[in-house]
């Protein structure tokens, strides 16, 4: 527990002192959403029909951006070597990393989503948005960090990361957009929303374990 909070607090502190992705990412999210009315035209009807999907695509792209840095810094400055030598379980470290990353790169998007939905003229209540964006952003982080560990230290890492991660993100996109669409049209979105949470329940315990394996493979 102590190790977990140590990793968590350290990552948050590093982020804030290095100019804060926690601030920049929501701005990026807003900028992507801003592109749509400019590209598609500001017609309210178009925005309302395509809005739910666009919001989740914007969140996907914003989650893609900070993934590359997730483990590389710790690998380069030797933190990971020390961790392995210290005999502490690597899974706690990975869990701490994931939590910190979600607070920095996931939660701000969740909080921003009602604002952006209002700007797109969507009639989706804020708790419906939370219900979809919370599992979606968590899944983006959980699956994305596996891809980050996979392409860690690889040649042309960032392009490779995008190629690996986007196909894996597709189910989240489909169910997220599906749920938002149903909320938008006022129908019951129970099916896709439950699917999102089910995927989260599946990914939450498994993905950190996979990452531990991958990190061990990367270090030796």
């Amino acid at each position, binding site marked *: 527990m102590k190790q977990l909070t140590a990793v968590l607090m350290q990552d948050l502190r590093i982020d804030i002192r290095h100019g804060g992705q926690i601030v920049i990412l929501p701005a990026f999210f807003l900028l992507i959403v801003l592109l749509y009315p400019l590209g598609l035209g500001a017609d309210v009807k178009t925005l309302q029909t395509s809005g739910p999907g666009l919001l989740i695509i914007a969140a996907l792209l914003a989650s893609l951006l900070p993934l590359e840095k997730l483990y590389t810094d710790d690998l380069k400055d030797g933190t990971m070597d020390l961790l392995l030598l210290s005999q502490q379980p690597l899974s706690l470290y990975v869990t701490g990393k994931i939590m910190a990353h979600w607070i920095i790169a996931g939660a701000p998007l969740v909080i921003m989503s009602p604002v952006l939905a209002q700007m797109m003229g969507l009639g989706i209540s804020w708790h419906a948005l939370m219900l979809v964006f919370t599992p979606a952003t968590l899944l983006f982080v959980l699956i994305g960090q*596996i891809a980050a560990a*996979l*392409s860690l*230290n*690889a*040649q*042309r*890492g960032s392009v*490779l990361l995008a*190629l*690996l991660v*986007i*196909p*894996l993100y*597709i*189910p989240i996109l*489909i*169910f997220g*957009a*599906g749920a938002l*669409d*149903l909320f938008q049209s006022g129908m019951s979105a129970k099916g*896709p929303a439950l*699917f999102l949470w089910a*995927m989260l329940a599946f990914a939450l315990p498994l993905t950190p374990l*996979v990452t531990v*394996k*991958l990190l061990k*493979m*990367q270090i030796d």
Partner: protein
Amino acid sequence: MFGYANPKRYQQLSRIILALALVFAVIFLGEGLYLALIASPPDYQQSETVRIMYIHVPAAWLSMFIYASMAVAALTLIIWKHTLAGFYIRAAAPIGAAFTAICLITGSLWGQPTWGTWWVWDARLTSVLILFFLYLGVMALGNAYDNPDKSQQASAWLVLIGSINLPIIKFSVEWWNTLHQPASLTSLSRMANPGIHPDMLVPLLVMAGGFLCLFVVLAILRLNNEILSRKIHVMRLRTIHG
């Protein structure tokens, strides 16, 4: 299975399989192409365009079969550290990607006269396209590290994660389509429905057998190349380090 981790024993066996597969590939493909392109009747609705199916459907089957075989190899590599499994993934991925590309291209050539469009965002098409990108990812990751062992391990993990993801994509895409589009497309895309006439089923199956044998031939050739190139890599390292 583990006896064949010994390269010599593997090579003896592979030589026999290679020869057999080569003979059968030539027979099946020759026979299949004759049946498919000349002997089989044109479809009453699609007329001659139906012949594209004899390439398209076996390619689609193989694209999935090869991914499944790579997933088995990935498990074998991760659990038992079987040396050949890592080489197999590297050898099979480009072939799988090629069959997926053939499937997509022939499908789109067939779609233009039949559906009147090159591409539809239909469940099957979309999931095959995603499969293609998964293959590309495996290939890219397989070359991403200077240490070849690490590349193999990393791509094995990706294959495994992708194999969990693939059914989700398949079903979610179908779901997503039923939410938005009329179901007529999905029934149109099911060309290989069980009610197919034997005159068409036989060439289809012969072609599928031919493609499978062709895959075995290509995979063994590539596998041997992979092993040789690894040997060269090791020998080079040895001369560098004295």
